[in-house]
């Protein structure tokens, strides 16, 4: 176990280094310049080059790269060019919001998709199965921004039940989390349904029934546990994606998360902030993947990690 973790963590450092290197190069290869973007369309060439010098952007690329790596190794990600505050602080400020949103969206997705998936599998071929399959297909296909705006129009504007934007109270969390959760409910329901359909025809399920176990016990102890691995895998990937990819929903609901921070940083060519945000998102992905891999061992004792 411990050697396995050590190996994974060592590998992760290399993955992070790779990600930073790619982002470092890509954002600098993109047309557009941070100093020019900050000073706006009417700045003079002298002012732009003065600001470039002050920001250290006039240094040769390898020097900037080496300096950045040395800094990053000490967990100093530099200062955001546009915000003027340390990148770590800017990201740390938004992590709680992103985590709250992701956690609630995941909770909603899990709480809805399991009952729906089980109901569809148990009622295979019946109207309830078809209704649930149709709903989950819809959930998966509806574009996020449209869904978000519809929810605002219905629950904020018409019914006046929930606020339309901001991040003050738990009420502010409901609409964005629901918007993020619904497509996920679609994916997970379909996954759970087809996974269950596979295992429900296995011999050991018939044996369990024959032993006289209650259907509920057969379902939870024998069927569900054995199809959880793909579900956990997808869930893990989705959490990773939400950590940085909830941009559209964050914009619609004026939610101050990491995704919007990253998108605006890219728009402003705020190099250190882009690099820092990507580092954070990559770390999140790596961490979740490790957790997911470890969970395989618990779910299926045949898988031995170590």
């Amino acid at each position, binding site marked *: 176990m411990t050697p396995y973790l050590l190996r994974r963590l060592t590998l992760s450092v290399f993955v992070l280094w790779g990600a930073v290197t790619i982002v470092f190069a890509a954002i600098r290869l993109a047309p557009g310049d941070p100093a020019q973007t900050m000073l706006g369309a009417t700045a*003079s060439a002298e002012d732009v080059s*003065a600001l470039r010098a002050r920001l250290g952007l006039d240094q040769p690329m390898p020097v900037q790269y080496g300096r950045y790596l040395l800094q990053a190794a000490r967990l100093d990600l530099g200062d955001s060019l546009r915000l003027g505050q340390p990148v770590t602080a*800017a990201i740390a400020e938004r992590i709680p919001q992103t985590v709250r949103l992701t956690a609630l969206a995941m909770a909603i997705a899990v709480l809805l998709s399991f009952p729906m998936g089980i109901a569809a599998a148990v009622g295979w071929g019946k109207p309830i199965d078809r209704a649930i399959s149709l709903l989950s297909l819809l959930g998966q296909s509806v574009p996020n921004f449209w869904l978000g705006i519809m929810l605002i129009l219905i629950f*904020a504007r018409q019914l006046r039940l929930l606020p339309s934007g901001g991040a003050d109270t738990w009420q502010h969390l409901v609409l964005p989390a629901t918007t993020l959760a619904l497509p996920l409910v679609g994916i997970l329901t379909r996954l759970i349904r087809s996974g269950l359909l596979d295992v429900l025809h296995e011999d050991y399920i018939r044996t369990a029934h024959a032993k006289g176990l209650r259907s509920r016990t057969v379902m939870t102890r024998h069927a569900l546990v054995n199809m959880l691995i793909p579900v956990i895998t997808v869930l893990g990937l989705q959490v990773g994606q939400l950590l940085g990819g909830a941009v559209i929903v964050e914009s619609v609901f004026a939610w101050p998360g990491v995704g919007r921070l990253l998108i605006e940083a890219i*728009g402003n060519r705020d190099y250190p902030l882009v690099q820092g945000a990507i580092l954070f998102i990559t770390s999140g992905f790596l961490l979740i993947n490790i957790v997911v891999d470890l969970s395989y061992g618990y779910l299926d004792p045949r898988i031995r990690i170590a």
Partner: protein
Amino acid sequence: MKTTRRRFLVYTGAGGLGLVVGACAPAAQTTPASSAPGAVGTAARRVPTGEMKIAIPVKVPTLDPHGAQSVEDVTHSVVQHIMETLVRRDASGNLQPLLAKEWKNPDPTTWSFTLQTTARFHDGSKVTSSDVKASLERVVTLKGALAPQFAQVDAVTTPDESTVQIKTKTPIGTLLANMALVPIAPAAQVNVAGFFNKPIGSGPYKVVSWNADADLKLEANPDYWGEPPGLKSLVFRYYPEVAPRVTALETGEIDFTWRLGPDQLRGLQGNADLKIDSVPGDIYYFIWMNSSRQLFADKRVRQAMAYALDVDKMLKDLLPGVAKRQTAPIPSNVFGYAAQTPYNYDPAKAKQLLAEAGVPNGFEAGLIWNPGSAPLDRELLQAMTSYWNAIGVRVKAQEMERAVWIQNLNQLNWDMDFQPNSVTTGDADFTLGRLYHSRANRNGYKNPDLDKILDDAVATVDQNRRKELYAQANKIIWTDAPGIFPFELFSVFVSRKRVTGFVPPASDILSFVNVTVR
């Protein structure tokens, strides 16, 4: 049109003119201290009450008003509640005393300001001349967007605690107006890293918390040296999308917003809970044609492009109630504006001009732009493209991300450019001096006569003389047409009825200091 809900204020050119009278009168003129915010007296001190939430249409990138982004309207709008300037522009554009209770101009290259002695920063320390010096010097050192306005400043001296002297190498006619954009921060802290994450100043509000992507929360400063502000708590919230912003206004989640397009306004006009104020603003559109390229080297071609547009029809169809026809290279409420004869829609004349210039069959031209920075930009561009097409000029619009667009724009890597622009200081120098001087070379247009006029206009402190010079500059730019200037936007402010005391500003810099809520 349901215009009854809209209180329509027209300041005409008087706003700009007032600036002359109130501000930079001849040598040794002083100003009365009576209009300072602290002058109301102790008898009826207002008690700040209630909370107001304001939806800002663009993100506040930073609370540092001195650095790279020192001319952003929205930064100044929020920062002026926290930090104060020596002078402030009032709603009619006149400069009024704030931290400076009076000022003198003993000779054309010397400005002497006497500070209020009662002003205190949020930490209790006194606002002194060295704080003014440090703040102004910071603007100059950081070489941000405002710094060129102070390029001629020679030295800032502090003869005593309450006197600041600014010596300039040549006379600067815009110095006083530009000081209204230099918020004063405490000298001892202003250069400390992280200061601007939670800055302090001498203003009526203190920062409670700031998150660049979301909310700026302010609370009334109980020890404010002047008349206490109207609100106990003031929240600025950024909404990236317009539809949720409008919904939040309708549901009462927010109390105030501005910069809405005609579509949104139409939907709000019948709403009895809302009040809409519309005033001439300092934002306008222009289309530049690169005079340094063969295509647009001949001014007759550029004029033809202007005659080809039916501006009145575009206004009526696309911008009803939010813009008016522009009649100079700068909007009508800017100091130095002088009305010119409009290029009336005349496609026949446009074709004739093209023929005279040797391109009777038109040509193809590229146009760069960055969408989303002003209302209806895409629709306007589509309309203009079809008008130009009608005279044989096939304009190929190339949409660009902001960073890429700015880079191309500054490298003169374009035939045509379409964009909104704003005259943040409210003075013609800010726009004409920066954009049309040969030295600036922003659109390929070079004219030594114009350069001379622009140089003279900035180097004189006699505001009437400056106005005459800018009238000449307006005429030259309008006639030579390095650009087309079709529309100036109104500033439209929408508030819920519970909000009282908001006065629409002459610029896009908004103050809520005297606003109260029921």
